[in-house]
């Protein structure tokens, strides 16, 4: 059954929010940052990236802070930070559950 979009973030969505945690960035910089952080493990296609940015802007997870020619800069909002933190907690819980299962605790 497909997950509802925005309730649980996909990996690509998670990394976009992660990239914007510290600095404002434009689309190209976000793609480069994700490549660097994941060492190429999470390839960010241009269509995927700009779909996520449009969706996040609509959901008010990010906001456009500057437009210079064709370049648009985005910053994460408080709502975006909350979504990121919630996803981080969920992922950490998954890891803890996996470790407990591995150790035979469950």
């Amino acid at each position, binding site marked *: 059954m497909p997950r509802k979009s925005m309730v649980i973030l996909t990996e*690509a969505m998670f990394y976009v929010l992660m990239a914007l945690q510290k600095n404002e960035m*434009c*689309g*190209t910089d976000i793609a480069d940052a994700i490549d660097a952080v994941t060492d190429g493990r999470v390839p*960010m296609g*241009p269509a*995927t*990236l*700009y779909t996520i940015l*449009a969706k996040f802007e609509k959901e008010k997870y990010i906001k456009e802070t500057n437009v210079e020619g064709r370049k648009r800069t985005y910053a994460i909002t408080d709502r975006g930070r909350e979504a990121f933190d919630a996803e981080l907690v969920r992922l950490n819980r998954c890891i803890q559950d996996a470790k407990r299962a591995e150790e035979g605790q469950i």
Partner: protein
Amino acid sequence: MNRTYVPGKTYYRLPPCPAYDIAKTESWLSDLAEEGLFLAKDGFFAGVATFEGREPAHVKYRLEAIQKIDGFFSNAGLEPDEEQLELSEKYSWEYVAKRKDFFIYRSLDPDARELNTDPEVHALTLNAVKKRQREAVCTAVFLLLLYPILITRGCVLLMTIALGTWCASLGFLWGVLTLVDEIVAFVYLKKTQKCLQSEGHYRFAPDWRKHARSYFLRKAMKNAVAVLLPFD
């Protein structure tokens, strides 16, 4: 059939599938590129595709759903976003043309990063196209079913008699074909989206040759009816 195409010369082809059939359109364009026909810049017009003869090559074509098509005086939906274009070019993708609700990109690099790397996000892009198609279905239902009943005040049979058998029959046939096309398009888009969400790809039935003949026949019939109708 190994036909040689002259480099630099222009060729015309009719697409063998509807615009919403992403997998078949991509497959068709790639197959033609392997024969030496490359889709020309802005190469779709009035249902005909324009190609340039080039050296045969393995080319990837990808269709990208247009998110926003604004009103008549707006540029939204005419060209892809410039920043997205720039990033696409960085990953070896060239924007080529637009066909109905989709932008068409191509890459000559077999290792080029895909335009869509997240199937769930890719499925989201089809929401906008699905929405427009749903509106098209509703419009077709209204214009072809409800409107005739409204303007004739329920006396559709009397209107049919007044128009004459041929005119009414042709009109009815055209209406049915149009309505069926719109509904099939909506259902197909929904199926594509579901496939992306559940299986991570949309490439079911990409063999464009399979139903090409029936597609051409249906299109020819619909166009013939549309041409004959005013003369009846």
